[in-house]
């Protein structure tokens, strides 16, 4: 039996037998690509210059430059941005042969964007075929070494680890220490996760940047398109990928500007309640209740929907409490209990407040009782247990007739409330 027949019988799988797809309008390559040659080999470089005044969606392309990095540092939680100018950083986005990760995934197109003079210079490093990779990486290394940082979308988890692997694999030493890396996905999630569930770049383009992609090649089809090009040698097949990648990078720049704008939310006419919520939450987590309260109050003035109201009120209550504005906090919890009776926290907070601040055992018991009923209704056993312990204690307190003051000392709430 012929070896090949044997192989076919044992190893052929139907899903493997993918034939290159037919593409009607392949046409002449109009990529505008220039062959770059160096000691490590050659590759195609596509350079386009975009005026900084170009408008991408509803954002002026060069707008992001006007923001000092420090302004975004808190929202992005990236220390390195203090003292870094965004204009000195480089935008980066890759197109790969797959999303699975691992050393068999090739970033065959690496797009970068940065400010050069009056222009936004967009460079696309394109591999004509697999062997071009070392040359691309050498050239990319040059560009990265000149930049003071990287701006990506999900690059922390995807593009950058992948590139580091490729440098390693091709033995191109990357003499870059710890790079400042602004991954826009994280600040975007902080502000918009409730508005756009997936927070993908395309949902943000649509909802924030005002961009609707026309005739765009979906990202999921990119790998197969590149394989089709490799099989046919038809460079025209790549123009859709290049175009897709250009839009991605321009969107990164626009998104940076839009995020930066949100850092002065009060002055922003289009500010939304959810964005205020995002800041309130972030400040609360980082121990700045005054700021959190400011954004909580702001959010409530921005026509929040019910879900946003609920979260804003919860943040606000917590912030006031941390600021020792107990009466204000209690007011917030009263509103919450009124508007969102299923929420258990307000009853607990109110019971504490009446007991320890107002020294009003009856109202404290009433609040705890409400909490208990609601917890039982929701079959929240642990919560119900806590409420009934609280009730018993309040009861005991009353019966023993001890002075309220002396109780404060053995009260388990002590540490948390005061």
């Amino acid at each position, binding site marked *: 039996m012929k*070896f090949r027949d044997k192989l076919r019988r044992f*190893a052929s799988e139907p899903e493997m037998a993918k034939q290159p797809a037919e593409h009607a309008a392949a046409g002449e390559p109009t990529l505008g690509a220039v062959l770059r040659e160096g000691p490590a080999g050659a590759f195609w470089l596509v350079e386009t210059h975009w005026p900084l005044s170009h408008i991408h969606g509803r954002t002026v392309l060069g707008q992001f430059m006007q923001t000092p990095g420090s302004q975004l540092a808190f929202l992005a939680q990236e220390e390195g941005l203090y003292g870094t100018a965004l204009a000195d950083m480089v935008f980066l986005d890759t197109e790969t*042969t797959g999303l699975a990760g691992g050393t068999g995934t*090739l970033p065959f197109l690496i797009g970068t964007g940065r400010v050069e003079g009056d222009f936004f210079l967009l460079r696309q490093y394109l591999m004509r075929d697999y062997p071009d990779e070392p040359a691309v990486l050498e050239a990319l290394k040059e560009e990265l070494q000149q930049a003071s940082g990287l701006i990506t979308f999900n690059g922390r988890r995807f593009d950058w680890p992948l590139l580091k692997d490729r440098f390693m694999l091709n033995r191109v030493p990357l003499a870059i220490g710890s790079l400042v890396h602004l991954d826009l996905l994280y600040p975007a999630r902080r502000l918009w996760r409730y508005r756009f569930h997936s927070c993908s770049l395309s949902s943000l383009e649509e909802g924030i940047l005002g961009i609707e992609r026309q005739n765009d090649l979906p990202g999921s089809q990119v790998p197969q398109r590149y394989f089709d090009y490799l099989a046919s040698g038809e460079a025209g097949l790549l123009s859709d990928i290049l175009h897709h990648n250009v839009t991605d990078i321009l969107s990164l720049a626009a998104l940076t500007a839009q995020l930066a704008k949100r850092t002065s939310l009060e002055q922003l006419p289009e500010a939304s309640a959810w964005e205020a919520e995002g800041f309130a939450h972030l400040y609360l987590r980082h121990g700045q209740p005054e700021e959190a309260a400011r954004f909580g109050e702001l959010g409530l003035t921005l026509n929040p929907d019910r879900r946003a109201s609920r979260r804003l009120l919860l943040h606000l209550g917590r912030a006031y409490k941390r600021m020792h504005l107990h009466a204000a906090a209690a007011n917030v919890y009263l509103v919450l209990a009124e508007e969102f009776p299923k929420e258990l926290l307000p009853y607990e907070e109110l019971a504490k407040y009446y007991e320890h601040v107002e020294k009003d055992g009856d109202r404290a018991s009433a609040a705890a009782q409400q909490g208990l009923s609601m917890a039982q209704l929701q079959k929240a056993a642990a919560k119900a247990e806590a409420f009934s312990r609280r009730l018993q204690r309040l009861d005991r307190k009353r019966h023993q007739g001890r002075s309220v003051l002396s109780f404060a000392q053995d009260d388990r709430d002590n540490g948390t409330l005061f």
Partner: protein
Amino acid sequence: MGIESVLETLRRDPSLHSQITHWQKIPAKSAQLADFPAWMDEDLKTVLRKRGIGKLYTHQAEACGAVWAGDDVVVVTPTASGKSLCYNIPVFQRIHHQPEARALYLFPTKALAQDQVAELMQWSDELGGTIKTYTYDGDTPASARRAIRSAGSIVVTNPDMLHSGILPHHTKWIRLFENLEYVVIDELHSYRGVFGSHVANVLRRLHRICRFYGSRPQFVCASATIANPGDHAAALIGRPAVVIDNNGAPQGEKDIILYNPPVVNASLGIRRSALLEAQKIAALFLKDNIQTIVFARSRTDTEVLVTYLRRAIHRLGQPQTIRGYRGGYLPKQRREIERDLRRGEVLGVVSTNALELGVDIGSLQAAVLTGYPGTIASTWQQMGRAGRSDESSAVVIVCNSSPLNQFVVNHPDFIMGQGAERALVNPDNMFILVSHIKCAAFELPFTEGELYGGSDPTDILDFLVEEHVLRRAGDRWYWMSENYPAVHVSLRSASTDNFTIVDTTNGSSTIIGEVDRFSAPMMIHEGAIYIHESSQYHIDQLDFDRQKAYAHQVKADYYTDANLAVELKVLDTSDSCQEGIVTHSWGEVMVAAKTHMYKKIRFYTHENLGWGEVSLPELETHTTAYWFVKPTTGPTDTEALQSALMGAANILRNTAPLELMCEPSDLGVVAQVRSPFTQGPTIFIYEKYPGGVGFSQRLYDIREALLSRCIELLRACPCENGCPSCVGPGDEVGPRGKHAARQFLEEALQLEIQG
């Protein structure tokens, strides 16, 4: 009191003694000791002395020496002979002096890996904590993975994780691969058959990655006793290995007893349940306060035995004296049982083969094996659990009525005389090879002239280019697919291809069991009655594509018996020879199996209650087979020939696994009265795994021994007209089936025909 009095009972009690087919005493052996090697550090010696180890056994010293001298080594010694010191001493010595050095430990299961890490961590602490040891497996939290990748001196994992989690991400493991000096493979004998063939390829990929990072690790393997440790190690690691098998561990006197339960129905050849007999014998030991391990064949049997023995021993307020041990127990619980066994707080433990591998439970005084474990190697592993250096011990093997067991119980030499089986792998199985070449190409492009597993993979690479999986550019082949190939290749292929049975009774959806792809059309077709732990389930739906069957519990008075039609076509003969009138061959075949219908059969009366149709796809497998054809001489009685072939095929199917160290379910047989290919009466034994893993060729090589073994078994079987222990029940193979089968086989071997 003590073990002697129990042995005395076994000797004296006629009802017991008459069932003993063999009793052998293995004399005591004293320890052979050697000094610590001169190169060993004082620190390390101190660690060992703290454990009461002042000298090494000779095999340990020899193994350490060979490893230190730079050889690849395979250590072959029985259970509890201190195998792990053979690799731990050189590895710790090296890393203690060269903190950058790395070692990779492979264990076949996660549980064994975790055991080992606990021990390694103690050593490490005592050496000052510089040697970081971690397990890396599916349970490792993502947060710990980064630290392990860069800082783990010893990474303990399993082949599956190496295959799908480490090699495809080798750039993240650069510190490990650049500095990898030792690869330790324990339980080497468990890497055989399909699993072993896959693992051999994973190791070929490991070699490639190490070459890329400029390292060339040494391999240190440890194995239970097998016939071919050197060859097996070489087949797996791709390099010759020095075999070290001069066991220096001491051994007390040991009695080995083969026990055959009494016959309860002579004509049907049915014996008393081995489970109950094992229970009876284990109770004898336990009642005399002898620490005993009982090996059961399944998880259910384990639980049943625990219940029985607890009842039999009946110690008020001491339920923990008898414990069960099997997969499915929580790790914490298993650790606790192991500890209590070592401390002697647990008197008896009933275990599946989970305790056959190298988990440290100390040494017990008696072992009872419920049924022959399936291989000689496993038998010795299990028997090795009983036996202390300073006391005598005893092992009783209680055989059941299966053909394998009946053969073993009547042929003590099979276990006692000859060595263990050969462990077989076929890393070049086309199916397996191509799968791993894909994974390898994903990890690193192949370069022109590069060898894979010692041979030139160009043809396969070009084939994969045609399949649009690889791309040839310049002098290299690159991965060209969105897929992550390792995900689609399971090293333990049987498990991924299994069908699960979902119980939907009362709106539940509980998985109650699994059957393999081949058995699915037979056992879980729509309308089948599936019996699981003595409950009956009616199969309502079989989703063949999703590999799921949905069933609900019923109480039916019938069972179902599906009719499987197997067609076998020879595609290519690899080798063939004529012996007398018989032609033996092995080669490639295509097996097509289809289930057309099933019968409903009433329990006890066996009357036919009707039948149903099954419409399921035909299962085709390209695989390898061994076959022989014996042309008819003189006039033929087709019916007699049919029953001779059927009987002979049945007994061959049951006997072949004895020689192959495989499961009976790994093989299938087909008998053809007039084969279209050979033109004569032919029996085929084929491998169920696509492409085969070397069993067929091995059967061809040992054909004479195989056929003689079958004849011996037939001659020794006391049944009249065939029973489940030999050619199958008489009503299946016909009243003269047993005789006809024996005659057929004897003629095939050109033996003088007896009676």
